[in-house]
């Protein structure tokens, strides 16, 4: 099979060899470092799978509050059907009497199944690549989308400063940002990825991640490139605001070239046409290209199902399951599947009882997923009780910061206490 590292470093060497020559003297240190780093790695020990520096985390955000009870279905509980007379999904093997369909088996002994549209996840489960974390939430749950999303993204119940991934980089990198360390896809950078020092690269689609003055008149392009790739001018004080902007401008050009070249390549496998699949396809292309990115962020919205939930929720979950399956297949074809862990979360689940409009209102704890060959597959933790409720809502059984702790310590091999402002019980979900 192809060796993405060796292939990449040769390309990088050629590309940056040219860049170095043409910009002698003004190039920021990180380009030289990363070029040399990649070269020596390729020469030394190419396919060092499992070495922490090569590990990648992908975060998939389900925006709007995904209905956890209809995602991971407690079909063994009569309380579930009492609370959800029309939305209740039938047990596996049953006949579909209602419109809600029949669950896919997840854990027969616990009476837990997957939403019928999650065939992609079911396949990942059977393949030993899916872990389900039950009852993930936090104390004094906030039912505002914005506040609860900020809490999840900040990794703190008092969300004010940076995001948890941003703090991970800030702590890991001694005050120097890691170029291309964090990449998010979407119109704006999610709080989770923003640190004091570390800033994500963020783009919605690669053809917008560039200057468009050249489309107006291609004749301007040469001058634009010269002005923005010049780095810090010799007359400019290195710590000044101008120098900061000149460095960022050069970073932007380099990242733009890099990313647009990476995502232009035809993927190795076939992909569904959904928007989440489009995002994950770009992520897989960047991983294939050998970018030194440690954390990627993708998202899908539309889970705020207050009314007429059945059809919309089924379509959304199908998109999620199919896109995640395609992503794992692509990684496998690339030979990168051992390097990547994917975390799927939503800002809250929904209320246990369905509402008068065939939907569900904002709730609390819900399952999260971890996907990859490093996970211990199956169901982890306790499904929250459907009887012992807090004002009609589930009580969380796993603090979300414990899930982050597992990801940080057991996958990224970074201490978590400083990032999370404390230690939280960690699920044993990632194999050592």
């Amino acid at each position, binding site marked *: 099979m192809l060796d993405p590292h060796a292939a990449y470093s040769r390309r990088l060497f050629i590309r940056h060899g040219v860049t170095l020559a043409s910009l002698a003297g003004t190039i920021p240190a990180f380009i030289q470092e990363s070029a040399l780093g990649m070269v020596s790695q390729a020469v030394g020990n190419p396919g060092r799978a499992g070495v922490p520096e090569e590990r990648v985390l992908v975060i998939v955000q389900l925006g709007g509050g995904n209905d956890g009870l209809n995602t991971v279905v407690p079909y063994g509980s009569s309380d579930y059907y009492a609370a959800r007379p029309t939305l209740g999904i039938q047990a596996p093997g049953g006949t579909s009497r209602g419109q809600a369909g029949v669950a896919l088996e997840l854990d027969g002994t616990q009476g837990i199944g997957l939403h019928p549209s999650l065939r992609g996840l079911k396949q990942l489960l059977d393949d030993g690549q899916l872990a389900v974390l039950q009852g993930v939430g936090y104390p004094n749950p906030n039912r*505002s989308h*914005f*506040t609860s999303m*900020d809490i999840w993204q900040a990794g703190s119940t008092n*969300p*004010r400063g940076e995001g948890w991934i941003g703090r991970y980089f800030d702590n890991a990198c001694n005050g120097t940002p890691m170029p291309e360390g964090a990449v998010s896809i979407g*119109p*704006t*950078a999610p*709080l989770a990825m923003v640190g004091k020092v570390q*800033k*994500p*690269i*963020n*783009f919605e689609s690669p*053809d*917008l*991640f*560039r*200057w*468009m*003055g050249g*489309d*107006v*008149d291609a*004749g*301007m392009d*040469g*001058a*634009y490139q*010269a*002005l*923005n790739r*010049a780095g810090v*001018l010799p*007359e*400019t004080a290195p*710590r000044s*605001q*101008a120098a*900061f*902007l*000149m460095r*960022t*401008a050069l*970073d*932007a050009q380099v*990242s*733009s070239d890099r990313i647009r070249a990476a995502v232009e390549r035809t993927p190795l496998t076939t992909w569904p046409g959904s928007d989440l699949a489009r995002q994950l396809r770009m992520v897989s292309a960047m991983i294939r290209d050998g970018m030194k990115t440690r954390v990627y962020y993708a998202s899908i919205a539309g889970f705020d199902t207050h*009314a007429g939930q059945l059809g919309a929720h089924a379509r959304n979950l199908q998109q999620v399951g199919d896109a995640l399956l395609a992503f794992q297949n692509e990684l496998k074809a690339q030979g990168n599947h051992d390097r990547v862990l994917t975390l799927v979360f939503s800002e809250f689940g929904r209320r246990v009882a369905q509402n*008068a*409009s065939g939907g569900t209102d904002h709730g609390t704890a819900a399952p999260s997923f971890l996907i990859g060959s490093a996970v211990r597959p199956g169901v982890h933790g306790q499904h929250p009780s459907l009887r012992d409720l807090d004002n009609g809502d589930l009580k969380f059984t796993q603090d979300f910061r414990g899930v982050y702790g597992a990801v940080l310590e057991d996958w990224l091999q970074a201490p978590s206490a400083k990032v999370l402002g404390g230690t939280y019980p960690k699920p044993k979900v990632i194999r050592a």
Partner: protein
Amino acid sequence: MKLPPQLKPLPAKQFNQDCARHLLNRAGFGGTPAQVRALAGMGLQGAVEALVDYQDRPYADAAAQDFDPDIMVPLTQQEQQALAQARRSGDQETLQKYERERNRRQAADREQIREMRKWWLRRMIESPRPLEEKMTLFWHGHFANGYRTVEESWNMFQQNQLFREHATGNFARLVRKVIRDPSMIKYLDNDQNRRGSPNENLSRELMELFTLGEGRGYTEQDIKEGARALTGLTFRDNQPFFNQGAHDTGRKTIFGYSGSFDADGFVDLILAKPECPRFICEKLYRFFVNDAPEGFTRTQEAFIQAAADHFVQQKGELKPLLKAVFASEHFHHPGNRGAIIKSPVQLVVQAARQFHTPVRSLSVLSSACELMGQNLFEPPNVKGWDGGRAWINTSTLFTRQNLMVYLLTGRTPRDQAWKASDQGYSALHLVDAVRGAGDRVDPPQGVDWLMRCSLATPPEAARTATILQSLTVRGMGMDNHGIIEALCLITALPEYQLC
């Protein structure tokens, strides 16, 4: 009135066009070369007064009267009873009717807040009183409330008008108004702050973020006691309302003083502390003088302290403070030119004002501000926008550059080929000052002049040469098209992001 030595004014004869441009960029949103020349002609004190004493210049803004205060009007008692009845009897039809109605109102309200964003951007671009808008923006970032929590556009509008009314007035008066403002009450939960069950949110932020600064001169106990003083401040029918029954009239001990303080008593205690003028002057300094990414130098510390002393001496009046700062030698020092990274709003509004481009679509400008990290009426949290270098990353830099292409050419990424003649922008006036014989503009002189007018700091010769060469090798001169292309490149310079 004697000024502290650190606030010593710039010698009047040093006030030239570069100083006037700097002043107009900072105290407002910049202006055309002709406006800069006119301001320079007023002399230092005249120019500062023209900007600060704006109340003499009328500006009627009719569009503001179009907003509907009643979109989110609460249910009448009758409606509430009908809804409760429907819940009890499980009357799905009625329940769904109310839900549809609520959804309709919320959608209309979200539409109205979008209109308000566009309205305010237009106001900033058009107003003959730019400092009024700039200070309104300052207070919005300082007393930061967001629509997504307040969920009622009319409250955001009322608060915006409050900031504008007190933009350059008295700080103490503004604070007393703000703690009663319905938007603030909602945002920081003071409607739930009652005798016997205090909510500390407003008390904490009032000291930490609005007046004293985090950990400066107050304790957790002061927050608790202060919260009791704020009990009963709530709102009714979108107006401030004091609920006497919810107010805790008991004895409180705040900063070591004991008494049955009410809200204004608490505010008086806060404002008497030296940390307060110091904190406000630090924030004003970062906003108007230098955003000091690596902390303040000794000189800067001394200037800020002198400003704080002056602020106290002026009894918290903002106009004399701002006048002293804008006229000071320190403000005009070359080291403070280009020392601030433009906020997204500054970038957009300044470009429209300084190049006099068409406004294009206010919706596009407003969403671009959001993409660049500054969605008006939606600061990220109660701390407001961090500002400075936090505005800039590789993505926002491309958005900033592309937005300038859009303003100058009218082109968005989805458009097809550009026809310069169709875009309705005449840029010729920008080079009037360097027209020679037969109204001709020599390209080297023209490009150099455009660079000087556009950038906060003197242009590097290499930059000017690159842009000039790009035009001349393609046979372009200083006609409309050539000027616009030169501006596309100038505004794509990293240093164009500086103010």
